[in-house]
């Protein structure tokens, strides 16, 4: 279907391609920063899953809401964030989206409806559903997308909020990025039965889609977003995908839980960017040179942002007790 309408959507396609490349470039730089011991803390790479975030976020309006996860850079980029503020946040600098207070695991970008990454697995399921409730009560016409991993489906919270979303027909889409692993464990070892059937049992219309195919994801998402706005939600989407790196950046020796063969199979044959690039060429939407041009431009953008972030200032020490309470400038002197 989407393929049939290809020629008429050149701009959309190029943007989807660019956004996927931007995510990959962001992560490559973040990974380098970490390996060079320039990034503090802990971070989880989104590489490999780009088609999920981009396919879905490109179906959303800027003021629609998303909630994100510990593996959240991809969602943040896809929802419209700028590299500079993102890298500043990852480095704990004052210019970061959260003034350095959140870091990788809590990055949020309210200017584009991203309600934030969350370091509690499943922790944002209530938030996304609540944003949908708010949208319905305040009749804003907005919808909410809740991104989470396959491992997060083990959290009881999901079943509680799905029940309410279904009862009240809330405009929320639960997007499960099924990358097959929860940390160092294959999710099928810790998930009984069928994840999709679990959502269906609450009367929630559910879909399974190839999360490496940005067009398939986007087409499905556009349809569901439209139906959500008409009050036909909620929906559940199970997206088959793969993370290229370890669970977190330090997870290097992972043979004991995941084979190199499996990794290279996905990287070689199912890469969402390579495959979409090939399709764009085959459809004469973009030439190989144009794609290289995009890649190069993105790389330069990322490098400039990294340089900016490295040079940027840390927050002043006086910020430590700011933002504890809204309306109280400094908590400790209150």
């Amino acid at each position, binding site marked *: 279907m989407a393929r049939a309408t290809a020629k008429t959507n050149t701009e959309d396609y190029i943007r989807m391609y660019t956004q996927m490349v931007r995510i990959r470039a962001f992560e490559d730089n973040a990974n380098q920063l970490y390996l060079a011991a320039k990034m503090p803390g802990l971070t989880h790479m989104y590489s490999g899953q780009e088609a999920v975030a981009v396919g879905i976020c490109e179906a959303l309006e800027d003021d629609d*809401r998303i*909630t994100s996860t510990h593996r959240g850079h991809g969602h943040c980029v896809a929802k419209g964030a700028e590299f500079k503020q993102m890298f500043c946040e990852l480095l704990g600098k004052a210019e*970061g*989206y*959260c*003034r*350095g*207070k*959140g870091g990788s695991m*809590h990055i*949020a970008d*309210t200017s584009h409806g991203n*309600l*934030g990454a*969350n370091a*509690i697995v499943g*922790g*944002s*399921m*209530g*938030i*996304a*559903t*609540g*944003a*949908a*409730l*708010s*949208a319905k*009560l*305040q009749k*804003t016409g*907005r919808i*909410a997308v809740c991104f989470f991993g396959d491992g997060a489906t083990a959290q*009881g*919270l999901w079943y*509680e*909020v799905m*029940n*309410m979303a279904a*009862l009240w027909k809330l405009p929320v889409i639960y997007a499960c990025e099924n990358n097959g692993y929860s940390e160092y464990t294959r999710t099928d070892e810790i998930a009984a039965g069928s994840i999709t059937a679990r959502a269906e049992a609450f009367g929630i219309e559910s879909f399974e889609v190839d999360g490496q195919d940005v067009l398939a994801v986007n087409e499905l998402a556009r349809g569901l977003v439209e139906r959500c706005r008409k009050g036909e939600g909620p929906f559940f989407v199970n997206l088959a995908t793969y993370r290229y790196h370890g669970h977190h950046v330090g997870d290097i020796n992972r043979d004991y839980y995941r084979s190199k063969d499996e990794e290279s199979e996905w990287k070689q044959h199912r890469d969402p960017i390579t495959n979409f690039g090939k399709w764009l060429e085959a459809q004469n939407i973009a030439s190989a040179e144009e794609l290289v041009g995009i890649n190069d431009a993105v790389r330069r953008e990322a490098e400039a942002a990294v340089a900016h972030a490295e040079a940027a200032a840390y927050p002043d020490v006086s910020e430590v007790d*700011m*933002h*504890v*309470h*809204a*309306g109280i400038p400094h*908590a400790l002197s*209150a």
Partner: protein
Amino acid sequence: MTRELTLSKAVNEAIAEEMRRDPTVFVIGEDVAEAGTPFKVLAGLVDEFGTERVIDTPISEPGFTGLAVGAAMTGSRPIVDLMFGDFLFLVMDQLCNQAAKIHYMSGGTMTVPMVLRTNLGATRRSAAQHSQSLHALVAHIPGLKVAMPSSAYEAKGLLKTAIRDDNPVVIFEDKLMYQDKAPVPEEEYLIPFGQANVLREGRDITLVATSSMVQVCSKAAETLAAEGISAEVIDPRTIVPLDEATIVASVRKTSRALVVDEGHQSYGVTAEIAARIAERAFYHLDAPVGRIGAMDVPVPFSPALEDLTVPTPDAVADRARALCKGGWADAA
């Protein structure tokens, strides 16, 4: 114009007034609509505001608290009804890992203007899982505010302030006081957070009391007055923020203090207030700072045991007397 209202009705009025004033305010919880909660505190609200704004939920405390957090982040002002304070244990992640931290973690770009109404108080023979007073736990978590009304008047004024506050506020009502009446003005009023109420002035000892313990201490103060001991009674009203200045100034004047609270004594609210007094009024103290919390035991069902676990006017008077007469020396 002032009438007598029950605490229950005062809460109901506060919510109704704020819902009329602000269309983004809504109530969410179990059996809050037609049933108006098991305590009937919300009776009638659904008739005026409909089921869209007085929302009955499944028995999913973490779930609906999470929904409230998300709704609060996106333009609504939810009031969560948590039927028993004991169920706080179920919602701690949403309240303390999420609601409390979002403003800070986002560098001030997001706010979570929600109220979580719940209750405290033993002696209803409801046993260990329906009788706890757990306010110390949430008071320990930066980012929350914690209000503890001690009468119908306080309940209305503090709740209205809570609803207008841009932060997550947990408000504990004493479930044994729902039918207690107090004068409540017809005119609108708010009670600011962080300003203690000096209920009774005194010279000899300061009794600091929260929520249910304000009445207990007021009674004790009367007993003491009859014996010539003049007790000042202070209700902090909110334990976060805490009006340390008023409390410390009082103790510097009276030179003795006793802190009384219905939470468990160990690692509870009395410890914080006593520690601050002992530090900041150190020079002025004529006796150690006393404290009485609930006994450090799960709340027993049997009436023969339960009544022993909570501070009583007699226990407060005894302790205050000892502090004033030097009997405290046995403490050493």
